[in-house]
């Protein structure tokens, strides 16, 4: 029996029962597509986080007012005013000439209504800071320019706004040079931020950044500031810089870390380590999705197995007839092998195609990135399951005496 003949009888077997073949195909297809796509979604989200880490740089530290890991960033509820993280503290920290600290960027934040002549946006985050904000943090000037140190000194009414906010406020023209009203006070737009990938809850493309002096004078008052971003001289010096800052701040804020009764007036967090944790979370998310996908592949495989077992049991008599006519075991095995392999491969390839098409679309805010190994893995596992359960019972039937196989059913 030639290879061509084997192929022909296998194809005849497949087309003989179209519904059964279609179901097998569908089972394999769904299993393979699910594995590839789910792994791609997990991988995509973890790549997103990794992208943020790279974007942020690994040489910044964030100093927040208050103890603990709260993200509130409000003033410390302490009676002792000397223990507040203020602009003065930030300036003294910057001027202290610390060996591993390049820049200190103080920030105050508040949420306000921002409007142009044509549109108004509620709860826009207003950040008051210094010009080095645009060099140290992820917020970069896209078009226009930053406000200057002189603007900070003079508390000028100039702002840099996020790209999303710019198009919302000025849908038809450029926002540059236009006047916007922040809670009733007019400001001139001097720059627009480059679009950045969003970290989630807050839209970093919908912010207003103004000189810190102006924001304190008009909105927040001269009390505590929310955060300081500290840039270390290099990523290797981050922990050294953290040590220096802590010593300096303890001194400035009269805080004794050995005094257990006192609450820390500030918290220093390493931005990159925070994102590192996020990356790990994304990693376990991928593993979880992979496990779900593996289960769906298994269930699909059991479906295929079932169909294959039924097929062979039904066809044991046919195997008997073929043996009575002089078919050898290899000839029968070859036919069933090719039949099972063709069906599962076809289903698998269709599954890959579906997954690759699906990966072109954003799923739940994540752009899936197909993992190279997932394609041969999913394909291999499904084909192996299909072929094994297609061939194993056929092998059993082919090993029978013809009369046993003929008597079945």
């Amino acid at each position, binding site marked *: *029996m*030639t290879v061509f*003949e084997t192929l022909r*009888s296998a194809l*005849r077997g497949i087309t*003989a029962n179209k519904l059964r073949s279609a179901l097998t195909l569908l089972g394999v297809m769904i299993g393979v597509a699910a594995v590839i796509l789910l792994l791609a979604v997990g991988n995509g989200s973890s790549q997103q986080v990794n992208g943020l880490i790279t974007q942020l740089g690994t040489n910044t530290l964030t100093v927040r007012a208050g103890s603990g890991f709260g993200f509130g960033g409000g003033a410390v509820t302490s009676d002792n005013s000397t223990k507040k993280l203020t602009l003065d503290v930030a300036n003294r920290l910057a001027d202290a000439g610390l060996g591993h600290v390049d820049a200190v960027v103080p920030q105050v934040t508040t949420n306000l209504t921002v409007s142009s002549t044509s549109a108004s946006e509620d709860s826009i985050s207003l950040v008051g800071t210094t010009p080095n904000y645009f060099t140290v943090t992820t917020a970069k000037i896209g078009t226009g320019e930053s406000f200057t140190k002189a603007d900070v000194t003079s508390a000028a009414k100039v702002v840099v706004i996020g790209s999303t906010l710019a198009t919302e406020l000025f849908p038809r023209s450029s926002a540059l040079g236009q006047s916007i009203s922040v809670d009733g006070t007019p400001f001139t737009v001097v720059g627009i931020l480059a679009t950045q990938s969003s970290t989630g809850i807050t839209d970093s493309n919908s912010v207003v950044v103004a000189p810190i002096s102006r924001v304190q004078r008009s909105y927040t008052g001269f009390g505590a500031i929310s955060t300081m971003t500290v840039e270390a001289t290099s990523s290797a010096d981050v922990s050294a810089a953290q040590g220096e800052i802590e010593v300096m701040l303890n001194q400035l804020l009269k805080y004794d870390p050995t005094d257990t009764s006192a609450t820390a007036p500030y918290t220093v967090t390493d931005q990159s380590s925070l994102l590192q944790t996020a990356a790990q979370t994304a990693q376990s998310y991928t593993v979880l999705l992979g496990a779900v996908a593996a289960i769906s592949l298994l269930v699909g495989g059991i479906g295929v197995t079932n169909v294959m077992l039924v097929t062979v049991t039904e066809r044991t*008599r*046919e195997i*008997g*007839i*073929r*043996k*009575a*006519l*002089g*078919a*050898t*075991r290899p*000839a029968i095995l070859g036919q069933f092998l090719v039949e099972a392999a063709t069906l599962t491969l076809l289903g698998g390839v269709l599954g890959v195609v579906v997954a690759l098409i699906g990966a072109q679309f954003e799923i739940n805010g994540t752009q899936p990135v197909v993992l190279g190994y997932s394609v041969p893995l999913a394909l291999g596992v499904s084909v192996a399951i299909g072929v094994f359960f297609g061939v194993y019972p056929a092998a059993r039937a082919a090993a029978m*005496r*013809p*009369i046993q196989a*003929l008597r079945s059913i």
Partner: protein
Amino acid sequence: MTIAAPDTHRADRGDAGSPDYDAGTVLELRGIRQTYGTGEAAVHALQGIDLVVARGDYLAIMGPSGSGKSTLMNLLGCLDIASDGQYLLGGVDVSSLDDRQLAKVRNKQIGFVFQSFNLIPRMTALANVELPLIYGGVKSAERRRLALEALDMVGLADRVDHRPQALSGGQQQRVAIARALVTSPTIVLADEPTGNLDSQSTDDVLSILDSLSRAGRTIVVITHEDTVGEHAARVVSIRDGRLVSDRRNRPLGTAKGAAA
């Protein structure tokens, strides 16, 4: 109706392993026993069968149901292996053959006609008849020619593209006969070939077997119907797993309806 004469070279296949092998003998059974199960539950289907069938003979094996005639037929067709005894087919002891060699014997030397036709559904009559040739390694064009010839011989030249379910019982059995003949086997075995047929179809099938016999083919038919037995040149009766009578209706080489 033209029927190709059997390949006379097949007689040369005899081996030196059986000294008393006669070139005129197609098959020989020596002390064949078949037992199913063991101990108390053992069923002795065949209890020592000795039988010699000559080339060109038309033999009917008759007996009531449960007599062991189907068991005997399955052994003759190499569909089953005897528990004990020797079965020489063309001088070769088939019990010593391995799976691959047995497949070859079934393919080249035996043409089997079943009571229940055993055609493969969803395959056309032509494809069914071609099947043994595929396993025999015959090339596509030659295969088609031989299969069409065999179908023409059983009078189904106009039904080659029909599937079994679109054919009557008699037509299905004629396709099965064509399939049994297409490889020019040494021996044609028919197990109750008319058991599922009406009288008209029975007559058709029997007349085909008669003409095969006239053309010199060796035929062994199993039946419990006397009318079928009458067509054979030799009738062997079996009862409780033993041969009880052996009677010759006509001399070897003559068939019913042939000019005496």
